[in-house]
C-alpha cells in the first residue's frame, strides 16, 4: 500500500536544486500513456500532440533551502518574499495542510498567509486535511482554526476543507470549513472546478460520485484535493497505492490537472505523473524534519520548516510559490496547462460562483 524509499538526504538537496518542470508536450504524452496503462510511477515518453494556445515561458524553479536545515526564526517571522500574480483574472488561492495543532507554528503560518495576501490577494484557502488534531471540543475549533487564521476570517476569506485521518467527519457541519455537510464535495471558482475528496474512506459511493462529477465538468481547470498523497517520498507514510489504484484512472480519464494532498508533514512537488501535477503540503503546522526520502518521484521537497503554498490558475498555466514560516521562498514555478482537446477555450469556459 505504501512505498518506502530510503535514499540519503543529501541526494534530495542535489535534485531539488536542479528540479525542473516538464513541458506540456511531455505531459500530454504522459497522460496519453496513463490512460492506456496504470500504475508505475515512471514517466512515459511518447510523441506529443501539439500544444494548444500560446507557448508558455520556460519553467522556473527556486532552489529551496537544504533539507534538514531550518529557516525557522525566533520572534516575529520576516515578511514573506511573495511574487505578485502574473495575470489579471487568475484564480488565486492558498494551500495549507495538517494545520490543526493550535501551536505557535500554526499561528506563524497564519500570520504569514495574512501578510502574503497583501501582495498576492488570494480569494480562498484550501485545507488538505488534519484540520483539528486531538480533541475536537468547541474550544479546539477556536484555538486550532479560528485564532490562527483570525485575520483571514475577518477579511471574509473562505476556507474549503478536506477531511484528514485526524478529523472527525462531523467537521463537515462546521460552517467555516464550507463543506456543505458533505464528506466530499465540489465547487467552482472562476475557470476552475475543485473536487474535494474524503480519502480516509474511499467507498464505492464516493468513487461513483467522483466519476459522475468529473464527467459533467466542463471547466478549464480541474483540481482535486484530499488528505492522502497518491505519490510521496515520505519515509513515514509514502505513496497511497490503494487510493491511487482507485482514483488515478478517473483523474486521467477526465483530465484532472493538479492534485493537492497533505498527510506527510512536509512540502513536496512530485514529478508529473501521467500528465498530472501532484503537490503535497502537509507542513503548515507540523513538520517531519528529514522525512523526505528522495526518490525518482521527487521534483522538489522541503522538510526543514513549516510551509504554505500560494497558487494562481491562469489562462494557460498554473503558477505556484511555496514559502516557509520564516517567509523564505522554498519552491516556485510555472506549470503549463495540459493540452486537452476536450478542454474549453478561455472564451467559452463557463464561469460560476
Amino acid at each position: 500500500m505504501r512505498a518506502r524509499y530510503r535514499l540519503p538526504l543529501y541526494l534530495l538537496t542535489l535534485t531539488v536544486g536542479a528540479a525542473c518542470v516538464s513541458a506540456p508536450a511531455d505531459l500530454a504524452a504522459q497522460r496519453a500513456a496513463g490512460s492506456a496503462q496504470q500504475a508505475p510511477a515512471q514517466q512515459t515518453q511518447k510523441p506529443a500532440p501539439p500544444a494548444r494556445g500560446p507557448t508558455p515561458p520556460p519553467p522556473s524553479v527556486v532552489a529551496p533551502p537544504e533539507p534538514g536545515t531550518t529557516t525557522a526564526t525566533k520572534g516575529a517571522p520576516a515578511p514573506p518574499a511573495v511574487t505578485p500574480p502574473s495575470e489579471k483574472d487568475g484564480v488565486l488561492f492558498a494551500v495549507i495542510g495538517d494545520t490543526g495543532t493550535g501551536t505557535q507554528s500554526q499561528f506563524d503560518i497564519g500570520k504569514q498567509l495574512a501578510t502574503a495576501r497583501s501582495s498576492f490577494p488570494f480569494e480562498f484557502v484550501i485545507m488538505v486535511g488534519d484540520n483539528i488534531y486531538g480533541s475536537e471540543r468547541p474550544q479546539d475549533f477556536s484555538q486550532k482554526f479560528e485564532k490562527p487564521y483570525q485575520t483571514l476570517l475577518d477579511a471574509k476569506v473562505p476556507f474549503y476543507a478536506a477531511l484528514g485521518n485526524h478529523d472527525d467527519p462531523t467537521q463537515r457541519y462546521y460552517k467555516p470549513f464550507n463543506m456543505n455537510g458533505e464528506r466530499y464535495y465540489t465547487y467552482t471558482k472562476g475557470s476552475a472546478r475543485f473536487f474535494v475528496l474524503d480519502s480516509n474512506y474511499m467507498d464505492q459511493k464516493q468513487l461513483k460520485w467522483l466519476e459522475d462529477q468529473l464527467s459533467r465538468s466542463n471547466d478549464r481547470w480541474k483540481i482535486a484535493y484530499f488528505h492522502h498523497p497518491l505519490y510521496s517520498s515520505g519515509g513515514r507514510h509514502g505513496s497511497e497505492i490503494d487510493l491511487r489504484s482507485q482514483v488515478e484512472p478517473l483523474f486521467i480519464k477526465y483530465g484532472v490537472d493538479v492534485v493537492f494532498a497533505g498527510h506527510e508533514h512536509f512540502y513536496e512537488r512530485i514529478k508529473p505523473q501521467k500528465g498530472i501535477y501532484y503537490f503535497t503540503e502537509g507542513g503548515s503546522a507540523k513538520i517531519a524534519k528529514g522525512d523526505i526520502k528522495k526518490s525518482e518521484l521527487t521534483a522538489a521537497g522541503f522538510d526543514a520548516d513549516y510551509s504554505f503554498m500560494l497558487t494562481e490558475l491562469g489562462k494557460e498555466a498554473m503558477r505556484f510559490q511555496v514559502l516557509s514560516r520564516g517567509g523564505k521562498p522554498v519552491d516556485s514555478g510555472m506549470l503549463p496547462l495540459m493540452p486537452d482537446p476536450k478542454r474549453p477555450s478561455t472564451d467559452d469556459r463557463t464561469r460560476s460562483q
Partner: protein
Amino acid sequence: MRKLILSVVVPSVIVAFGVCASAQTRTSTAGQPASTAGQPTAATVPPQPRVNPTAEVMAAFRKRVDEYLKLRNEITKKIPEVKETGDPNKISAREKALGQAIAAARASAKPGDVFGRDATPLFMKILADDWRTRKPADRKAVFTELPKGTHININQPYPTTLPLLTVPGNLLASLPVLPDELEYRVVDRHLLLRDRDANLTIDVLFNALPRMEK
C-alpha cells in the same frame, strides 16, 4: 377387470403422485407460502435454484444493519440532524446526545450482534484475502497511526483524541456496502462498525484481522 383397474387403481396412482409432488414442492420452497394455486403442476415444476450461502449470509447482515437504522431513525426524530453551523458546540452536543441515546437504546448489545455469527467467517475471509495481497510493510503501515492497546468496545465513543485509521479502499470495495450513517474502521486487529455522526462503536469483530508477522 379392466374396468376395475380404470376406476380404482388409476385414480389411486394419480392421488398418490399428487401427494408426493405436493410434499416435494413444499420441501423445495421452504419458507415460502405453500399455496400452489396457479402454479405449474407437479410434473412440470422445474428444480429450484440453490441459494448462494454467501448471499444468504450477506442478506442477513444487511437486515441487521437495517434494523439498526430503524432504531437510529426513531432516535434521530428526537435528536434532529445538525445543520451547518459556525458553532462547534452544537455539533459536539448533537454528536454526544445521539451517541448516548443510541447506546441507551442498545444497552444490551453484545459483540457480533450486527456483524452476526453467521457472517463472521465471511468478514474474516474478506480481511484475510485482502491481507494476503499486502506486503508486510503495507500491513504494518495500516496500524502506524494508532497507539498499541487502544481500547474499543460496543456503545463507547471512538476516542476523539485518536486518528481514525484509514480503511484501504480496495478492502472497502470487498466489504459489504454500508449506509452513509455507518462505516467500517480497524483498530488493532479488530473490525468496527462505527456510527459516523454519533462517533459510536456499534459492533466489534474482535481479532478479525490476521496476526502481524514478526
